[in-house]
């Protein structure tokens, strides 16, 4: 978690956004993120993000479910309490399939959703800085991080040339914190308030 300075620009149309992302990358600015109201296909590639490995995680969770179900049921029927059920075998594999399948799906789904929340750092009570309230409505919000080497004015004129509007500079917490969306409670603001009081 760190407080950083950002230049924020709004785009109305994906068709303008894509070339702008490309320009930002060639110009060598530090692209913090692009916030979009819906998944824009190909934007992750344009930004140079690597593919998500969530599928692999899902596969591992699924296999865990399969082995849990199979080993548990065979342990119960063979080792813990071998019970004669109508003379049926103690390892009736076909009869184990439904539960094995269900647990595979259950483990994979629950595990993946939890991993997803973990990776994206989202959960009830978590708050993050919203650069523009319409980034979840209709605007594509490009956020460029300011380092010692970047000149804010230069980035602003660069974004204007790339087709952005409502360009502004924001000082914000880059990570997440526990907070409420009905209050301005960014951790660094709270520190300033307690220092003033």
């Amino acid at each position, binding site marked *: 978690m760190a407080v950083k300075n950002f230049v924020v620009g709004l785009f109305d149309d994906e*068709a303008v956004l894509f070339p702008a992302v490309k320009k930002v990358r060639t110009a060598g600015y530090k692209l913090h993120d692009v916030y979009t109201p819906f998944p824009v296909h190909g934007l992750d590639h344009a930004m140079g993000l690597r593919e998500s490995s969530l599928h692999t995680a899902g596969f591992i969770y699924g296999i865990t479910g399969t082995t849990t179900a199979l080993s*548990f049921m065979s342990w119960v029927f063979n080792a813990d309490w071998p019970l004669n059920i109508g003379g049926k075998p103690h390892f009736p594999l076909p009869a184990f399939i439904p539960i094995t399948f269900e647990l595979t799906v259950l483990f994979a789904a629950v595990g993946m959703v939890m991993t997803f929340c973990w990776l994206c750092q989202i959960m009830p009570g978590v708050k993050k800085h919203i650069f523009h309230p319409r980034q979840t409505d209709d605007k594509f919000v490009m956020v460029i991080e300011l380092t010692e080497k970047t000149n804010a004015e230069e980035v602003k004129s660069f974004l204007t040339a790339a087709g952005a509007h409502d360009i502004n500079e924001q000082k914000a917490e880059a990570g997440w914190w526990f907070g409420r969306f*009905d209050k301005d409670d960014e951790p660094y603001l709270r520190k300033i308030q307690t220092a003033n009081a």
Partner: protein
Amino acid sequence: MHLKYESTLREPLVDGEKDYHQVTEDIISPIEGKPGKLWYVGFFISLSLLGFGAFSVFWQIYFGVGVWNLNKTIGWGWDITNFVWWVGIGHAGTLISAILLLFRQGWRTGVNRAAEAMTIFAVMCAGQFPIIHMGRVWMAFFILPYPNTRGPVWVNFNSPLLWDVFAISTYFTVSLLFWYSGLIPDFATVRDRAKTKLRKLLYGVASFGWTGSTKHWQRHEALSLVLAGLATPLVLSVHTIVSFDFATSVIPGWHTTIFPPYFVAGAIFSGFAMVQTLLIITRKILNLEQYITIGHMEAMNKVIVLTGSVVGCAYLTELFMAWYGANPYEFDTFFKYRAAGPLGWSYWIMMTCNVISPQVFWFRKMRRSIAVTFVMSIIVNIGMWFERFVIICTSLYRDYLPSSWSYYRPSWPEVGFYMGTFGLFFTCYFLFAKYFPVIAVAEIKSILKTSGENFKEKMEVYEDQSDEKFAHDVAHAH
């Protein structure tokens, strides 16, 4: 030029001159306003039904399962009928959200949210029946394989009834996760445009702090795709396992291998009918006719006529096998006590509602008529309820020993319990329609520029030009 392109021959999925902001306005603003009079009337009717249901269940638990009209011959009656009926209804939601996602059917975006909500509420209703049916509900946790002080004596993993426990609970959990992960970005949309503090706070919590970061969207897409891939075999497995409850027994009329596909088709059939019933009302009351278009309803009616015919085929196959199989008990069950006999009327209601009447949907005019669709959706649900009743009761009421033959009609706590689940279902649905985005806002936005009416019109230029030029322009677009 735009990379997105879809043939103009396809009907637009979003009518009217919409841009992204207008989509948000149209779908989110009902959440922000006060509900209308109709909402309150509907909500209180549902609540009172729920109350009556709770009283009926209390009555049954207090006096025991004997207050139901079940007897030694007919051990499963309305309770299991309703269980199978509700589970089946749930299936359409998963079909729309998962299977149609894998098949890349754009029209699912208009209806998937409400359909998935329906799935979850329907499964909630369904789950009550087997639990209450146990009689001593306070012992219900015995169905879970937990280490206990009785040995531990474990549950029987060979039993289809136990498979059901796993299937239904997994189905509920996965549907809920799928539904909620789709809701997170939309809750963030509600949060960021909220004017009141309370709304900001509550939707802030519900949205998990979602920002719309590109990386998060990428993961979200990956998650949705894999969850869809998991939910697809899951939904087929759930009704398959429900059908195993019957098919693995040796009761004539139940002991058939056709049951799994036949049950799954029937489940999708009744589920789509319920989606139609709900959405025809929802689109009207919330003014969402431009998002849930006649085209959407036509697509669902096509599924209804297909699955209805599959079910019809299964009925005929059953009859054929009862004759061809030369098993006298099965022959009697089908030809003397199902299609005829004291409960024969229920068989013919089933046949009329499920097989004969949906055939009107072969006509385009009928598929696109709201009135016909609405009436048909209710007829199909009645028919599918009777299908389960027929399967359960007409196989049981004439068993091997004529002295045990019996007849069955429900007692008031059975009817009350069923009414109560309607109350639960609609109470949940009314709350959903008021406080949740009824249409997946983000998903509609992602298809808007290929399938929105005003964007399609712009594509007419490309219809006339050669494929080579189009391909060349796309390749050199940026």
